[in-house]
């Protein structure tokens, strides 16, 4: 595998994590550099969402072993909100509804927290509304949705679109997209994928968790990893995704002697 740059963004070494005492991640190793797109695939229950939750700092999961560095900092030392401000964004597989909290209020709070972290002044109301408008267009998010409560009463597809909208607002360095494509029809998929592509640059990186090649047709990964039973059991170029699409996971299980 050819690497474009030598500076590291994310480095995961031998990461183990538990939930309720049960080991889910069992020694993950992964390195991500700026500008790269990595796809993570794997059967249901293999630990893909757990990996994204652990990277984002969800306290439900307990890291028992291993190291994670993000731009040279020990990521595991940081609170979830600090990780966000450092530039890690998670597009949730199941975005949660927060009744009563308007999208506008939610996003303005988030943006201002990010600005505070960078020792910047809070954004002015007019700049904020301009930013909202601009970023809404990236994912063609209806103004009506933006004025509702966070995810409340959104359809599955609208929730996913809203995730990418928030990503556009926060401009993360590392975006983790956890099955952002599931539940999207073809048009929505194209809009979401275009949104992600518009935000891509040589300075940021993307981890795409998906079951389907159709998303990878739009968001082209350089690296494809198979996560199985809490470990990355195979890594290759984009051709691996096509092979998995065609043959499923049984051949990998066989290779592993199962």
């Amino acid at each position, binding site marked *: 595998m050819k690497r474009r740059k030598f500076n590291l963004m994310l480095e995961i070494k031998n990461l183990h994590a538990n939930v309720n005492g049960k080991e889910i991640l069992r020694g993950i190793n992964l390195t991500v550099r700026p500008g790269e797109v990595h796809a993570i695939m794997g059967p249901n229950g293999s630990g893909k969402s757990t990996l994204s939750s652990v990277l984002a700092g969800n*306290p*439900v999961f307990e890291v028992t072993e291993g190291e994670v560095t993000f731009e040279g900092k020990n990521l595991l030392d940081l609170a*979830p909100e600090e*990780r966000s401000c450092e530039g890690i*964004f998670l597009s949730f597989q199941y975005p949660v509804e927060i009744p009563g909290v308007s999208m506008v209020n939610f996003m303005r709070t988030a943006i201002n927290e990010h600005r505070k972290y960078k020792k910047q002044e809070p954004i002015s109301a007019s700049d904020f509304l301009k930013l909202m408008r601009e970023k809404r267009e990236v994912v063609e998010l209806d103004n009506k949705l933006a004025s509702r409560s966070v995810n409340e009463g959104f359809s599955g597809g609208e929730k996913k679109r809203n995730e990418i909208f928030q990503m556009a607002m926060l401009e993360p360095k590392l975006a983790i997209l956890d099955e952002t494509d599931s539940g999207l029809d073809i048009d929505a998929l194209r809009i979401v994928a275009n949104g992600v592509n518009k935000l891509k640059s040589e300075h940021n990186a993307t981890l795409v968790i998906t079951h389907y090649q159709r998303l990878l047709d739009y968001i082209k990964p350089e690296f494809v990893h198979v996560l199985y039973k809490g470990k990355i059991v195979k890594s290759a170029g984009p051709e691996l995704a096509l092979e998995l699409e065609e043959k499923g996971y049984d051949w990998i299980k066989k290779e592993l002697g199962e």
Partner: protein
Amino acid sequence: MQEEKDILDEVTTGDYKYGFVTDIDTEIIPIGLNEDVVRLISSKKNEPQWLLDFRLKAFRYWVTLPMPEWAHLQIPEIDYQSISYYAAPRKKEGPKSLDEVDPELLKTFDKLGISLVEQMALSGMAVDAVMDSVSVKTTFKEKLAEMGVIFCSFSEAVHDYPDLVQKYLASVVPYRDNFYAALNSAVFSDGSFVYIPKGVRCPMELSTYFRINAANTGQFERTLIVADDDAYVSYLEGCTAPMRDENQLHAAIVEIIAHDRAEIKYSTVQNWYPGDKDGKGGIYNFVTKRGICKGDSSKISWTQVETGSAVTWKYPSCILQGDNSVGEFYSVAVTNNHQQADTGTKMIHLGKNTKSTIVSKGISAGFSQNSYRGLVRITKNAENARNHSQCDSLLLSDKCGAHTFPYMEINNETAIVEHEATTSKISEDQIFYCNQRGISTEDAVGLIVNGYAKEVMNKLPMEFAVEAQKLLAISLEGSVG
């Protein structure tokens, strides 16, 4: 996982930032309560005979009453003989202008964010500030007087407008109403008096700020608001107290009267000292608030944001006597740590086509107990009465309690009465979602709680909505995360 559980369980108080004591020369009468004390209070205030007689009748009735039984409150027995019933910042001579008010006092109200001088100059809001038992200063009086609006301390009203006071005093809350109403009627110290004449829309918010300063004292204020035909007034009451280890008693009475087509909005932001995080100290807040829509098409609206007090017991109520009259009750009650709140409303429909709306939002954290208790009574002659009640509870811990007791008495079959209730929790997933976007757990709780309470907060006068929002967040500081 355990750690995660703790996130929603762990409770500490945010510091109560109003907990300072003002060092001021205070006159306090000895503790204890008997007829002589009642006479002493009355004479200190130079009261007319009729008022002394009223106090004595109330006192003689009070001594016959047993301590009230508490439904959902646990309160150690209160020793009424260990309280002082009158405390007043010692006056040199009654202050006639702000320049003459004790500078220490002004500083106190400054610290509370109630700068009397500023209020006067800038905000266009009239403020009456009550420290311990005595009204310190009423601003804007002259300007209001031009329109015939009376806004002054209760004591002044007794001297300057005795006919009005005598006509309306105890006309909504008789001294026989309940234990604390009888006690207040016997020993009430001061409070505010408002009269809006026929056809006048009061051009500014009227506001009273209550402050208990002296130790071992009770505060028993009395507020009387009358809006004559076609009048309108919006009134706001705020309260704070110093932090003290012992409990302090606050037993107020508020009576409001709306004549034909009059409208009265009464808002409260109550932030008495709630006690420390182990439940030590704090104010016992036993308040009787009642309004009567006496005239046809009149309207009374109660809005309250209750975050303070160790124990809160209050049911701002509306008697809908006039035909087509409207009663509203919007409430947010926050309890944290060991606070207990039993609050709600009574809507008594007497007139035809009367309408009432109840929106109650309880927020409980820590080990607190938060009860909504509400009565909707439709009497026999109240044709076409309507009520809608919405009672929501939001829980922030596993150890707190939220209870809803809606009582309905419907004696007219044309009535339409609806009651909805919900209970929800702030989920760990919601908190984490906010965290992931850069929002700290505390700010996330603030966002969610304020979102939850929005419907009520929106009813507050603009100037106070922001303050009240901050107060909500502060009251729950440390209750999550």
